[in-house]
């Protein structure tokens, strides 16, 4: 019996010839990540409770200062300091200081730290993002991370795999974000609970790596353990000159067993949003167009890489943010910010009246720089809109792609981008 990509990676990590869904395995980890909210507890558990003095391999760990950094208050400064000190004491090679890294899920791929065929864990739920690079990547807790730090291995239940096939190509204006919101709307926030989502099909071959990362990023919003994609030319090109280690791609066997097969015609997917207050509350854009907004947020590990900012800038160029609305743009990494500066995107944002911030998770999790108040309505390019996610439990959050967000900032209501821009310039769409 053949195996899926996910099963092959877990079998290799466990030192076994094969594994089946439901097996509990102890597997070696290839790379691990933590940040300013999860390193302090993990470090304390590892040292004070588990009694480990050093981490298993300081070259296979990355730490980012992203959630509440630059410190939003004195308590966050303490968490930042504990994160910094732990990274220094343990000799962690891939430590990213404030102003030099950014959001973990952009920083790790852009630095070539998470590679095909690998078993990757991160103490953050959106660690499933890395799976677009043909690896098994999943979110874990702080006790889990302490275990990985101490031993270099962790227990896993081998997940059943759900296969998602996307036929044909996405239409003009429709982005990877619209596709994944549509899928989550179809299967629900627990539709893939504890399972692997394997994405494949023609539509994916025609989207770039950043768009693919947007899709695997949101696997957790369907409850999945991981999201994973095949290795192809796009993967190879993205990693050329970037990969920090040699790697071996993995593919699913033709006779691999899937729990369920889902097929979608990508060409039929419309621009869409997730309405308040759940990521599976999908609605075509046409049904919510005209909804009045207080804030528009372009940011997060989901949709604030350079391609996202290019599309937002193309829409905003020559326009002003509507009176009564604030637009906050947060690049997802320092490298993205540098590139945006080179391309003149920041000038466009500032001229439009947007607030441009440093790279941080910031407003996405209601941390800082864009927290919502009671009754406020926000359109956001982020991943999650459960009650209270971005601030007050009675704030209303809609999720969309960056071009829709930019157009809506210009009009002040939820708007199709073609009402502001005739056509996305070639090379940007």
């Amino acid at each position, binding site marked *: 019996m053949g195996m899926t990509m996910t099963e092959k990676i877990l079998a290799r990590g466990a030192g076994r010839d094969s594994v089946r869904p439901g097996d509990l395995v102890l597997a070696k980890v290839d790379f691990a990540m933590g940040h300013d909210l999860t390193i302090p507890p993990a470090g304390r558990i590892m040292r004070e409770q588990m009694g480990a003095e050093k981490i298993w391999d300081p070259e296979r760990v990355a730490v980012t200062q992203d959630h509440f950094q630059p410190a939003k208050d004195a308590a966050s400064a303490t968490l930042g300091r504990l994160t910094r000190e732990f990274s220094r004491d343990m000799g962690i090679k891939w430590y990213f200081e404030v102003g030099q890294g950014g959001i973990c899920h952009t920083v790790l791929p852009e630095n070539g730290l998470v590679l095909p065929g690998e078993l990757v864990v991160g103490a953050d739920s959106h660690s499933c993002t890395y799976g677009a690079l043909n690896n098994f990547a999943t979110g874990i807790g702080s006790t889990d991370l302490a275990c990985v730090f101490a031993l270099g291995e962790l227990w896993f239940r081998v997940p059943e795999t759900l296969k998602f096939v996307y036929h044909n190509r996405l239409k003009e204006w429709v982005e990877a974000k619209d596709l994944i919101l549509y899928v989550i709307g179809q299967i629900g926030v627990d539709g893939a609970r504890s399972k692997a989502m394997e994405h494949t099909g023609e539509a994916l071959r025609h989207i770039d790596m950043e768009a693919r990362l947007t899709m695997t990023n949101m696997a957790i919003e369907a*409850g999945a353990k991981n999201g994973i994609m095949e290795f192809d030319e796009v993967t190879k090109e993205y990693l050329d000159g970037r990969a920090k280690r040699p790697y071996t791609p993995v593919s699913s066997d033709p006779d691999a067993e899937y729990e369920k097969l889902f097929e979608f015609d990508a060409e039929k997917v419309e621009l869409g949003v997730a309405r308040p207050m759940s990521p599976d509350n999908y609605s075509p854009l046409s049904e919510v167009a005209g909804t009045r907004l207080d804030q528009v947020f372009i940011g997060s590990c989901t949709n604030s890489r350079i391609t996202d900012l290019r599309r937002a800038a193309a829409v905003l160029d020559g326009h002003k943010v509507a009176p009564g609305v604030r637009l906050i743009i947060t690049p997802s990494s320092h490298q993205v910010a540098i590139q945006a500066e080179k391309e003149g995107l920041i000038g466009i944002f500032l001229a439009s009246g947007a607030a441009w911030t440093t790279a941080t998770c910031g407003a996405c999790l209601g941390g800082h720089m864009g927290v919502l108040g009671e009754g406020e309505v926000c359109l956001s390019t982020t991943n999650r809109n459960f009650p209270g996610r971005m601030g007050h439990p009675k704030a209303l959050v809609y999720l969309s792609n960056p071009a829709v967000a930019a157009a809506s900032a210009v009009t002040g209501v939820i708007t199709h981008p073609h009402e502001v821009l005739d056509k996305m310039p070639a090379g940007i769409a």
Partner: protein
Amino acid sequence: MTLPKVIRGRAWKFGANIDTDQIIPAKYAIYSLDEKELGKHAMEGVPGREGWAAAVTQGDILVAGSNFGCGSSREIAPVAIRGAGISLVIADSYARIFFRNAINMGYPILQSPQASEGIEDGDELEVDLEQGIIRNFSKSDEYPTEAFPKFMNELLQMGGLVPWVRRRLEERRHVATARG
């Protein structure tokens, strides 16, 4: 710390898809290393349940619907619930990271769609952890719980992943010493 055999307490009932930002709003993540402080704000993000933690009596039981603890990986979610004084969580089903965080902490959680359906807010419960049975005194009813894989039960019984890692580190040191 080993688990008690029997837990008794009042049920606090919550719905489906309660995510971690409702269990403990992210703004309280600044208290990541302070279980008591986190406990004061447990479930504060659930609309209509503000001030809930103050009403909990030590030992009470939280009962939820499906996909409990979806969202973030932050371990402060089960930590906050424990910090509020809740002795045990029963749900129709759990989101996976919340599930593994609780098991890793050695914190008892049970999966029982029947209990999640049958129990109402305020019911008096007795849970026999050895037999996996939930008794509802208020309704004179009882519900079975779903068995966990052997390794997860072992982790729970020994008090979570910390003692397990300690033992494994010991084994490695012995091997290293024996090899000289």
